[in-house]
């Protein structure tokens, strides 16, 4: 699940971890909170990134860009943006 991005710009560990965490938290379909089930990780990182870019009205490239990273750094609600 390598992170698709322009190699030169987003090498720093922190950003890569932030993006992975963000996509896992908000763009991974969450099982019902009352059943401690396993998380499905069916979609690739690029597919989740595309979904996130689409939701926020960004350019849907599946690649990390500064605008996408900026949105990911904003304080927000912890509920996933995709259906439970």
């Amino acid at each position, binding site marked *: 699940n390598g992170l698709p991005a322009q190699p030169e710009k987003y090498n720093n560990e922190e950003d890569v971890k932030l993006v992975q*965490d963000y996509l896992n*938290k*908000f763009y991974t379909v969450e099982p019902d*909170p*009352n059943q*401690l089930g396993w998380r499905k990780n069916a979609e690739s990182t690029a597919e989740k990134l595309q979904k996130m870019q689409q*939701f*926020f*009205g960004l350019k849907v490239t599946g690649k990390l860009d500064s605008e996408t990273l900026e*949105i990911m750094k*904003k*304080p*927000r*609600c*912890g*509920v996933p*943006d995709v*259906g*439970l």
Partner: protein
Amino acid sequence: YGVTLPGWKKTKLTYRIVNYTPDMSKEDVDKAIQKALKVWSTVTPLIFTRIHVGIADIMIAFGTKAHGHCPRYFDGPLGVLAHAFPPGNGFGGDAHFDEDEDWTTGSAGFNLFLVAAHEFGHALGLSHSNDQRALMFPNYAYVNPSEFPLSPDDISAIQSIYGSRPNAPDKRPATPTSPKTCDSQISFDAVTTLRREVIFLKGRHLWRVYPDNSEVELELISTFWPTLPPGIQAAYENPKDQILFFKGNKFWVISGYQVLLGYPKNISTLGFPKGVKKIDAVVCNKNTGKTDFFIGDKYWRYDENSQSIETGYPRRTADDFPGISQRVDAVFQHKGFFYFFHGSKQREFNPTARKVIREMKSNSWFNC
């Protein structure tokens, strides 16, 4: 908007504040939570009752990182601020707030009222909206807590699950609450055009008049604009196809049927001095793009192009509108003429000839 159905199968819900944040006084937390629930009960049949022990439908708690048996974790300061679960048993309906954030009643840190109102949207069955003006948009955005935080998108979402607030007046017999359309003594608070319609406002009601086919409809103002207060005092249609409503020193801007974000604003932002506390009546002359604001026995002229009040104002109304000597309740323009309302009478004024043409009953437009 998005919903996580089926929502609660009842309209009377309980909530319990399990613990408090040290960032705010307990009273302020109680108030913020109560106000945040009221946001949703204002536009639905939902009723929230607080309990202090036992299991409530909506359990409200502050925690950090891994908290209790919650399957979601918090992440320290910033990042995730709070989360909630859709209606259901167990975690269903619960709302958790990250104690590692700085919770406040104002614009510093994170405003607990605003975040709680968002989380309670989830607790009632809403998921995130990608409409950036919506309260249910995932990212935190501070808005003045004195403004009603729901956008039309939020209201459509919650009412798609629970319906709208039962308009009590509809349950009562129409006569005592609805004004009598053909009462010969009727007066109006404000009148404005709205594209090809003329809208007459009084108290909580409005009449929609189509002058071309003499149709008249009586409605509640809240049917169209739930966040507008009753008792609007002045209104007009500007050249940008927007309607501006005035009450006291505040005004709202409606585009289509949506209240624009960031309103109400203070009328001082239009250029009025602080001494001006309210607007009696207002009309935009479609032929000149100038808007006249009537206050007491004077009026101010506002240029819609430069978006500023013209110099040399206020002027005495009677000097420039001969025959309009009393305070103006309401005014609108139709086919080039101005119609000035005072009590149960209106005067038709020709701005070119600068004279009153005739006087009629205020409700002559209703074809009584």
